[in-house]
């Protein structure tokens, strides 16, 4: 883990409304219940790659360190595996808070620390919207940078392995009863707009 970027927390770094904003979003209601026990940080399978542990992110929300959080890698690294929430003694939905932070970061145009991630989420959603289910080859094509030969080779290699094990379908998936999932999407986008 890299050492934290902030050496001294100053009042310039603290956004007074940030905590209240996050508490209004889904998953944020009980964020003040956190007792900073560290079960999330200890449970997180991706913590080694993060610049701040999930627990530290929660603490920074309490303080209102908006800029530090929204420009951190942690919010993009979280894989939403829900190990932390299953074990959290205070019932805090950390992945939901992470996605709330991701939304805020995109809305307020913070450059993502992990560039590919916003694009990944975007493409993922687009593909699901199109077919009703994820279609991996298309996702690969969409997120791989065309000017990076190394990346293309790596992804192709992974793709072949998956293909060999029958985990990858080249044909686009079909979902019966398209109307049902499009209704779900409509509802979600309506809620998001509200």
């Amino acid at each position: 883990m890299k050492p934290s970027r902030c050496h001294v927390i100053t009042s310039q770094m603290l956004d007074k409304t940030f905590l209240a904003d996050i508490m209004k979003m889904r998953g944020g209601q009980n964020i003040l219940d956190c007792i900073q026990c560290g079960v999330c940080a200890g449970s997180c399978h991706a913590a080694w790659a993060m610049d701040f542990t999930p627990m530290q992110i929660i603490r920074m929300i309490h303080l209102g360190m908006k800029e530090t959080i929204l420009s951190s890698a942690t919010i993009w690294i979280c894989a939403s595996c829900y190990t932390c929430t299953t074990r959290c003694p205070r019932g805090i939905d950390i992945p939901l808070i992470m996605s709330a932070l991701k939304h805020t970061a995109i809305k307020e145009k913070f450059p993502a620390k992990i560039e590919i991630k916003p694009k990944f989420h975007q493409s993922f959603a687009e593909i699901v919207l199109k077919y009703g289910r994820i279609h991996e080859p298309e996702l690969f094509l969409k997120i791989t940078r065309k000017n990076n030969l190394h990346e293309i080779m790596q992804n192709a290699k992974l793709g072949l392995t998956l293909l060999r094990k029958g985990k990858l379908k080249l044909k686009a998936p079909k979902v019966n009863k398209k109307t049902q999932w499009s209704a779900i999407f409509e509802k979600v986008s309506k809620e998001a707009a509200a």
Partner: protein
Amino acid sequence: MKQEPKIGVYICRCGCDVEGNISATVDVEKVKEAAFSINGVKIAEVYEYVCSNPGQQMISNGIKEHGLNRIVVAACSPRMHLETFKRNVAQAGLNPYLLEIANIREQCSWIHDDKKIATVKAVDLVGRAVERARNLKPLKEKTVQVNREALVIGGGIAGINASVELADKGYQVYLVEKSSSIGGHMAQLGKTFPTLDCSSCILTPKMVYVAQHPLIKIFSLSEITKVEGSPGNFKITIRKRPRFVDVSKCTACGECAKKCPVTVKSEFEVGLGQRKAIYQPFRQAVPSAYSIDKEHCLYFTKGVCKVCQKFCKADAIDFMQQEETQELNVGAIVVSSGYETLDPSGVKQYSYGLHPDIVTHLQFERLLVQGLHRPSNNEQPKKIAFILCVGSRMVENVNENDYCEYCCNIGCMNAIKEAYVFQKEVPDAEPWVFYTDIRAHGKGYEEFYARLRNHGVRFVRGRAAEVVPHNGHLRVRAADTLLGMPMEEDFDMVVLSAGLVPSPGTENLSRMLGIHTGSDGFILERHHKLRPVDTQREGVYACGCALGPKDIRETITESMAVASQVATFLGKGEVSVPPEVAVIDDEKCNGCEECLKICPARAIEKVPSTFRTRMEINPMSCTGCGICVPVCRTEAIDLNHCTEDQLMSQIRGVELKEDVSPKIIAFIEKNTAYASADLAGQTRAHYGTNIRIISVPSTGRIGFRHLLQAFASGSDGVVFVEGEDSVLTGEKLREHVGRLKKDMQAVGIESLRLVSTTTTIPQYPKMVDTFEVFINRISKIGPLSPKVREEIKKKLKWGESK
């Protein structure tokens, strides 16, 4: 013979002339004039301090010389000087229950600035007090003899010490214990923090003392099955399970256990040791006798064996023993039912139960006493992880039940102590403590913790995330939250400091005793700070972990406190029963049992009689809340000092002056909510003169009839304010109000005209807010339509003529 009421009204200025707390905003002379004009008022006087000596003299003179038989004092809150004036009136020879106080300070002069409005309201307050006074009846306090014997439920250290303290004070004590020996959890412990005394060495002498004390009788293998009677005179039924060993003959030589062929896991060793089917949980057990475990004994399961009987030299074994019931008469009850360790297997990530080397703190205590070894291979562990807060401080868990929200209070210190003893036992020991927050809050605890930090115990600030068996070791994953870094370590053993939960029978026991448990399942004390060992019921007390998790020192303190409280209660020899209780008219009662179902104090009992079931209210248990009065269909119940007549006349009194619109009656619970209203006055919070307060023992006293009367008397809205610690809160209050609203709609009154709220004393701004919002609401809806009012009046008249 009914006495013609001769009423004296004494109005206090609360200060000099126009400077007084009352006279500054209330024209007291006008109030006096108004009072004098009311029928029955013989004397109306104004004085600067009615509570002072000359003021009290005035009242005495009025009673002695003018033959007054009802006194109304218009002054400050009754919470301030009710007792003063009661004494005053009693000394002058009048029954103190013939006194009424009109609160024209906290509810009037301190609330309003406008002298005109305040005066009108004061006149109204005094008028209503006079109306109530007219209907007051003399009441007498009764006294009842108490039985000077006490029952202690639970033979752990709390119960043992409470029994010792009480018996040493000279009271007969019955100590009831459900297992075969007293001693409880303390007997299972090795050493105690922070002094590191041996637990058994300080406990067992006390156990022996209990056994030998002439005033203590131990009932082992016994449980309470029934509690009847009232404070001072309880009748207890206990069930004694058979021991199958004659305690008086058994010498505890242990020959029987040596020969017994059945081996089972020992409960005392928390599954980490074995015992026979005939056993003693531990050598120092009291009573010092063996007992047969019927579930495992071959004679009881298969009908063969009886080896123990053959080898018992004392001929103490008796397979014919039967279950017995016994009745005890006691004056007071002490609950010391203790705690249980929470089952940590509900907190899945710690893999408890999946690997033998993952143990609870209590199991680890036993391992330390037995000689420390890993349960899996009997080798000495070198590296142990102590995980704190297992199941504690959680508000959510994947498993519904296995967690508690509160702190276990002892986990930190206990783990630190165990780490220390582990270091002493094993030369190159490596204890790690994974903690959330170290709570070292007792005398000497912080110093103990500091010593251990300097003693090679590694403290990691971070709740362990998971425990996984890994290559013959146990891998603990956690995060060092001070560094913000995840970590992994391999250990030989893992000790889980599991949370503490109430003994399984606590809920049932409290229901039998008519006391309450809190949301945490532990017994609720009367007052968190001032009455910490009293329960909601007079004569029933609690101490130790039955009240909540705590350490031995605090348990001892509480057991001493409880003994003192019990001695105070029993020592007086009699208890006085306040006369403000509900009474049943036998003629009218039809035995429908509605009152019995609703009584929160379990004061109502069914009495079988030849012709029909009769209900009887026990004045000792009755708290005088009056909830039973409106539910009685035959109007057989009435509440002393807040009778139907008195209450109705108070409500009718609102009609006297048509001064404000809308007019709102606030029924306020007389303790907490009334005190809250007083505080609103003391802080000079302002609310509209529209609010007319009537204090009631509980808003459950108000039935539909009273609501109708309130609306008929010109009120446009009704507010209920209940104290948060009263008997009628939460769901019960909602139900009560919901029922009334339905009835209101049936006669054409909008349900919006009734509102209820609860308050604590400092929450008066919330109450004032409710008043203001409600006044606004009623102003918007407008006054009750005259047509509906007329109909209600007709209905009431019809009801009365019937």
